[in-house]
């Protein structure tokens, strides 16, 4: 009996902590009004024109089988 009594506050505390942890899972997404930082220039993947051109060329000549990313060609990797 004594052991049972002392165990209850621990249970209660665990329930609160558990609820807090599970409650935290309900707001994992970035909310629409929190996207200011995501719209900045530094978040763009194409912010560096030279790097973008290089990446395009690599994909075109090495990865694409039938002309990738809107570029015509056979994808032979010869240019």
């Amino acid at each position: 009996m004594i052991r049972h009594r002392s165990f209850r506050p621990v249970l209660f505390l665990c329930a609160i902590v558990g609820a807090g942890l599970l409650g935290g899972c309900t707001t994992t997404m970035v909310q629409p009004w929190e996207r200011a930082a995501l719209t900045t220039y530094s978040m763009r993947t194409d912010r560096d024109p030279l790097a973008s051109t290089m990446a395009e060329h690599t994909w075109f000549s090495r990865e694409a089988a039938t002309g990738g990313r809107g570029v015509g060609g056979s994808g032979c990797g010869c240019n």
Partner: protein
Amino acid sequence: MSRRNFQSILCAGLVLAAIVRAVAAPLGVGDKFPELSGIALEGKLPALEGRVLVVDFWASWCGPCKEAFPALARVHAWYGQRGVVVLGVSVDQKENEYADFLKKFAVRFPTVRDHEQKLVALVQVPAMPTTYVIGRDGRVRAILSGYHGAATDKELRTTLNTILAENSSP
């Protein structure tokens, strides 16, 4: 910890998590819109007593929000004398971005800034921009999520005409 105790804790946790989720649920049609005077908003609120309210949540970094402004300005001009108030609520946290935007685009309807993002979090807007049409009783009559040009304009006008017709009928 016994298996039974573990199950009890898990159940209690899930129930409380569900309560937390329910409390944070987005505002829907028919719900009471929060009292604007009770929330710390930066800027002067227009007279809202007995008015039909159009609240538009916007941000300076949001492209479609800018597109919606001319239509909202027209609603403000056309329906203003019929008891409709258009209020823009910016969710910008940086004051200079908000001020620069207002200066650049010369917004022609009242605007306040929800600098602590309390109102927007309370309302849980589904997208930027979102326009809430609130009747004279303070309840949400329509929620226009996003801006889709003429379709959104038409929906807003139709909702306002319906509300105003209800209020003018004996």
